[in-house]
């Protein structure tokens, strides 16, 4: 059996997810035993016509993005969205909360007509996404789990429960109890509760769980001393589109 051909593509994003893969230094050589990386702009110049698995980073935010993602979808057997921008629109989608004209004006000033821009959408709004790896940046253990599962022809197991679960398994003291903000109760797990474990709070980068009780979440945060406005603003940081 020949090695599967995999490719990485970036759309509107900081490319941090791609960088995160290059940070897998201890595993990179083993990884190359398993797959042929045929396209990876952050790391190499080569191009290919077809892929077994295409990993997509970043969100859709320009008309060109739409053309490109259709093209990639036609050439790949499996498509995996990587990171908050690709999966749920992420930080980029904050711009959707403002008028398109104001956003263009603010960013490009009088050159705004040179840059066609559309409301931000996740990859799944345009083409079929087979699997998702969430997080900002994407979680590398989860990325490896998806990759290994696909190589073995198995369905990856992706969690749809809250960060609270992983935080409790680690017996962390609740950060809400310490007067801090936290979105752990409604954010998807898979990060091993890394932020609360190291004294930070959960910013919700992995998006909300699938059956989100939005009103309940706001009421919950109000009981801990946060205003409705602050609760909603913080919830929308990574999840504007998921909370619509």
């Amino acid at each position, binding site marked *: 059996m020949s090695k599967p051909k995999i490719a990485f593509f970036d759309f509107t994003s900081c490319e941090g997810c791609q960088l995160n893969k290059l940070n897998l230094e201890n*595993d990179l050589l*083993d*990884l190359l*035993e*398993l797959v042929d990386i045929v396209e990876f702009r952050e790391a190499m110049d080569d191009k290919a016509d077809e892929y077994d698995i295409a990993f997509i980073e970043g969100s859709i935010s320009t008309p060109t993005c739409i053309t490109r993602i259709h093209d990639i979808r036609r050439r790949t057997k499996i498509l995996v969205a990587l990171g908050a921008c690709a999966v749920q629109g992420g930080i980029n989608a904050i711009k959707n909360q403002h008028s398109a004209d104001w956003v263009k004006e603010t960013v490009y000033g009088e050159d705004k007509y040179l840059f066609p821009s559309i409301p931000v959408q996740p990859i799944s709004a345009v083409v079929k996404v087979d699997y998702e790896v969430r997080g900002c940046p994407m979680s590398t253990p989860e990325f*490896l*789990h998806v990759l*290994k599962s696909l*190589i*073995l022809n198995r369905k990856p*197991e992706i*969690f*749809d*429960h*809250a960060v*609270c*679960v992983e935080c*409790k*398994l*680690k*017996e*962390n*003291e*609740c950060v*809400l*109890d*310490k007067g801090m903000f*936290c979105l*752990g*109760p*409604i954010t998807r797990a898979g990060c091993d509760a890394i932020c609360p474990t190291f004294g930070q709070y959960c910013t919700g980068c992995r998006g909300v*769980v*699938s*059956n*989100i*009780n939005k*009103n*309940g*979440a706001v*009421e*919950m945060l109000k*009981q*801990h001393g946060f205003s409705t406005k602050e609760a909603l603003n913080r919830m929308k940081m990574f999840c504007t589109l998921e909370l619509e």
Partner: protein
Amino acid sequence: MSSTDVKSRLESFNCYYFDKDVTQKFISFLMKKGDVIAPHKTGELSYKYEIVSDATEVVLNYSRTILPLKKAFMPPRETLINFNIKNNQYTKPQISTEPKIFFGIHSYEMQSIKRLDYSFITGLPESNYLTRRENCKFIGVAYKPDEWHFAGSVGIDINETDGFCLYFYPAKNGYIVFEITDEGKNLLDEFGEGSEVTDEYLKLNEDKFQAKIKFHHNRIPEIFTHVYNSKVWEDVAQKCVGCGTCNLLCSTCYCYDVHDEIELDVENGQRDRFWDGCMLNKFAEVAGGENFRDNLGSRNRHRLYRKFKYITNQSDKLHCVGCGRCSRYCPANISLVEIVNDLIDDYTKQQQKEIL
């Protein structure tokens, strides 16, 4: 377990007085006999059970630990097998049966272990849990109920000594130590310290629970036969965000999920299990994506029925021990006692409509 006052419960046992120094010496003495697991302070205002490395760090006047004692017998994550898919072989990790002494345990926590014993022995015995349960001694300590403890409402007195070999009761500058079993007596005989208890020290007070279920615990399972379609479940679902904290921290919940992870050589791997909970999205999901409990109302209902009805019907015991963790740590401030009391109100209203 009927409600008895503290005097009649404890006065039949032989007892000694330990001041604070002797108590610490006793912990050090226990440490020579095996791992001593006791409550320690963690973070700003929380406690957790840890193996004692320094007797002075043990905290005996604590409210409750974050994780229940089940973590010692069913770890949050454990590897069930290591496997190799190329040659189709597997090995099981060894589980230690070295002696363990659990020190400073509250009565509801001891009773939760008895409930777990029932759950893991009934049907197919669960060998990892039962192996870890071998060679264990439990030494209890009295506690002052806070606003979340409600063990009294589920029939477990503060000073219930069932399961303990020794029981520590706070006294002036130390503890009165009651010999509950011969095992406990042997430990005290070997330790050889501790003084006679004089009237100055033997002051047993009855502490009261602040949180209470309205009906006697014997009535609770019957209430649950009438409230399956109660509106209370919808009200709970409005507040609940489904984070699963109540499941994860419950001292009698035992559900787990199993997950295989393969290494990058795509050959070796391990099968891990970790705690799961019926409040979580995928718990009741089956092949094809159908979910039998796809909303928070039905999940909360299921959770409480597991505590007060389903296992109770089989075991004759409530499988809630009143530790209060689900309510104390719920980020949305949902109180289990309030849910049960609302159900009781709902039931009472139903009954008032019934005319002979």
